[in-house]
């Protein structure tokens, strides 16, 4: 049996009010791909942040090759051969790839030997088949390319063990496959990989062994060959997963609820971010929008809710053109589940009641003259909160103290209880645990059955494939034609996400 490269013994880490890691132990063998599986909030990230010196454990030991080490900073971690690629990249946008690779690396000396540096980067890039251009500016790279830069950065520092935190969340299906090839290659060269994920199929594909964390405790470590996805899911969430039932709809004859014609808009940096978008959504239809983040999805959601001014084109809701402020859109029956729950979706310091009545306070019965009738507000608010099963210490608790799932339920309560005609849902399940995800999906399906049109923008392809009736892909502000969900293949979606117009004859050339 291979030697343990890394061993964590009884790691405990608490934050005010929560135990993030409760005596977690983990052993990773040299040269294996070890998956760390768990829901959001299970303690995966905390554990890895301890390993790379961002957090310091309250108690417990870290052993590398059998020797106890104290890791006090990411630099310490790198000297111990451990490097991490974070889910949100830690790169300096305005610098070149090469500069990003050496930044903060003191072995460099006072002056940069540029030729040597470029050669070394090239060597690594060729050895591991990680294609990067050292002279490119990071700002211009796609998420997939940025990820490769992060990996090369760690290899440049001669790490023995690479930690990847949810690495596929920003990738297209093809890029994910390429990443897996790279990882197997690294493994073949003796590197150890810790792969953090909550996607079961990925783990079944890439991992040798898998450790499951649940609510800060480690549940089990096992060989991949000895398990199956269903068992992993059960261990991860503590029960069986619910299957979503979606009825097949015949939408052909339904009237259009949303109709976009030639919609264009400019982003905060003044660049074109929506480029002549045409789209129609029929009554009771869920249209999914796939795409790598940053290709105009945020701006599309903003434009469709009045938060962003459009520069050309028309938005028609239920047959009538809408233009203007968020209030105009709200009045026309457009609800919005925003991507940034706490920054946009609510007023964090306001109470649950105040937040849930945010779209009702301005009219009777809550509004009486110039005043807000506290009693009626409380009554109506409580009803909404209990209908959507928002769990809170008390109704006067500030919303910022709620968990992500409960906060999302509160937002759903507010957005769905005003009988919308159209819902713009952006990453509605991002960062939620499995039961909250199931709940959000259930509510969306319920809305659809009532005849609400839904635009579902998500980075989670599985979510899009289960919920959508039809799908479109965004790339650099452009949108593909909407097609029935069954007429797409995963590969086609992936190519569109990368901006490659998929054609039969190109298929082989690209594969």
């Amino acid at each position, binding site marked *: 049996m291979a030697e343990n490269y890394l061993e964590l013994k*009884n790691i*405990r880490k608490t934050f*005010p*009010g929560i135990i993030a890691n409760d005596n977690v132990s983990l052993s990773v063998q040299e040269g294996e791909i070890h998956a760390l599986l768990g829901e959001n909030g299970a303690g995966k990230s905390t554990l890895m942040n301890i390993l790379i010196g961002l957090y310091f454990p*309250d*108690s*417990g030991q870290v052993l590398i090759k059998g020797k106890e080490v104290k890791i006090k900073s990411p630099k310490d971690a790198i000297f111990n051969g451990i490097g991490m690629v974070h889910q949100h990249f830690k790169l300096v946008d305005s610098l070149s790839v090469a500069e990003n690779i050496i930044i903060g690396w003191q072995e460099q000396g006072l002056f940069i030997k540029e030729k040597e540096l470029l050669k070394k980067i090239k060597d690594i890039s060729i050895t591991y088949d990680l294609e990067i251009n050292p002279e490119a500016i990071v700002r211009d790279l796609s998420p997939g390319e940025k990820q490769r830069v992060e990996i090369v950065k760690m290899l440049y520092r001669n790490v023995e063990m690479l930690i990847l935190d949810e690495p596929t969340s920003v990738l297209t299906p093809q890029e994910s496959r390429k990443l897996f090839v790279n990882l197997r290659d690294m493994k073949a060269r003796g590197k150890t990989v810790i792969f953090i994920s909550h996607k079961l199929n990925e783990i079944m594909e890439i991992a040798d062994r898998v450790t499951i964390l649940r609510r800060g405790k480690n549940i089990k470590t096992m060989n991949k060959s000895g398990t199956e996805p269903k068992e992993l899911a059960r261990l991860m969430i503590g029960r069986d997963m619910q299957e979503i039932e979606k009825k097949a709809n015949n939408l052909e004859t339904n009237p259009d609820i949303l109709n976009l014609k030639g919609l264009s808009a400019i982003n905060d940096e003044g660049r074109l971010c929506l480029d002549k978008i045409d789209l129609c959504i029929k009554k009771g239809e869920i249209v999914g929008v796939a795409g790598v983040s940053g290709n105009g999805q945020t701006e599309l959601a903003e434009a469709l*809710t009045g*938060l962003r001014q459009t520069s050309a084109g028309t938005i028609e809701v239920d047959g009538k053109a809408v233009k203007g*402020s*968020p*209030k105009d859109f*709200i009045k026309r029956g457009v609800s*919005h589940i*925003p991507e*940034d729950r706490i*920054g*946009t*979706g*609510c*007023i*964090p*310091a*306001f109470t649950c009641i*105040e937040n849930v009545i*945010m*779209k009702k*306070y*301005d009219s009777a019965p809550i*509004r009486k003259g*110039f*005043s*807000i009738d*506290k009693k009626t507000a409380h009554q109506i608010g409580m009803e909404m909160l209990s209908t959507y099963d928002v769990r809170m210490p008390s109704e006067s608790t500030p919303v910022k*103290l709620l968990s992500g799932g409960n906060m999302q339920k509160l937002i759903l309560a507010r957005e769905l209880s005003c009988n919308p005609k159209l819902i713009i849902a952006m990453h509605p399940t991002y960062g939620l645990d499995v039961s909250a995800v199931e709940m959000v999906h259930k509510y969306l399906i319920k809305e659809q059955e009532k005849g609400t049109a839904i635009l579902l923008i998500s980075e989670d392809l599985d979510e899009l494939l289960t919920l959508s009736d039809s799908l479109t892909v965004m790339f650099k502000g452009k949108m593909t034609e909407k097609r029935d969900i069954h007429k797409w293949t995963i590969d086609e979606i992936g190519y569109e996400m990368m901006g490659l117009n998929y054609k039969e004859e190109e298929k082989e050339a690209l594969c």
Partner: protein
Amino acid sequence: MLKIERRRTTQLSTAIIVAVISIALSLIIAAVVLKLMDYEPLKVFSITFQKTYFRKAGILENILMIIPLSLCALSVVIAAKAGLWNIGVEGQFFAGAIAATGIALAFPNLPSPLLITLMFIAGAAAAGIICLISVLPKVYLGISEILTTILMNSIILYFVRFFVYSAWKDPKTVAAQTPEFSAAAKLPILIEGSRIHYGILIAFIIVVASQYFLKKSVYGFELRAVGENQKGAAYAGINAKKYFFLSMFISGCLAGVAGMLEVSGIVHRLQPTISADYGFSAFVIAWIARLDVLAIIIISYMFAGLIVAGFKMQMMGFPGAVIFMIKGLILLFILGGEILTYFKFTWVKKDKKVLSKKEN
């Protein structure tokens, strides 16, 4: 190992204990300084304290000073609730005083109620508009309102000098002041034998109205939403710009009313010394009161005592610098003590020892 944790909630009792300890500590240090200057600290404190808080004259003076302090503090609060920093309260106070003085000098013979109403409107409007102008660069150009409101202070204070030294100077004296107002422009006294004038009723009405506006009205709700999270408010369909303008206008008006009441009710003319740093004290009061409208009245009373005590000590022959120092110490400790109400300091035993014992 010392561990610092943010408190999830702050109990009222903690806040009170911290405040008491803060004041005690600052008095101890002040006592040491007084001792070094060969005074009897205990005697000085007890006399000052008695004169300020336990003699009728002192108490009435404190109450009188609640008027400008609470109005100026409210001015800070209304802006802060919309997420804005109005540091120009001192200037707006004077703007209100200037406008009111202008009306009083221009129409000395109008019937008193009409003249005072006009002075009130002019004082409020002038300061409100100046405050509104200060926020324009923020809304349209993204320039911090902190800068514009601070700079506006200097501009207005120079205007005050212009009026008292030149345009409206009282020809009868050499002092820098305007002529005394006609009887019609003076607010009548409310409590005989004191200087407390009808302005205290106006201030009271304004405090109650502000409390209603912020806590109960639809506009107050929207204003607070904008202040807490501009993006979230926009998402809910609230026009943030509108509330930036509205809150700053009201904020200015309140400071302006304070200035108007001061010239009409107490000084009866414009002088460059009508404010005992009310505009700046208001900032401290507003934040110690945690932007709570009702707490402002209590804190204003305490603070008024501090200012009145300073006057009393000056009359007893203490140098002004010592008084400033003691006032400064008290504020420093109170604000420093605030940290204790937001954070908790606890000693944590190192777990490692426990662990190694277990292993043995």
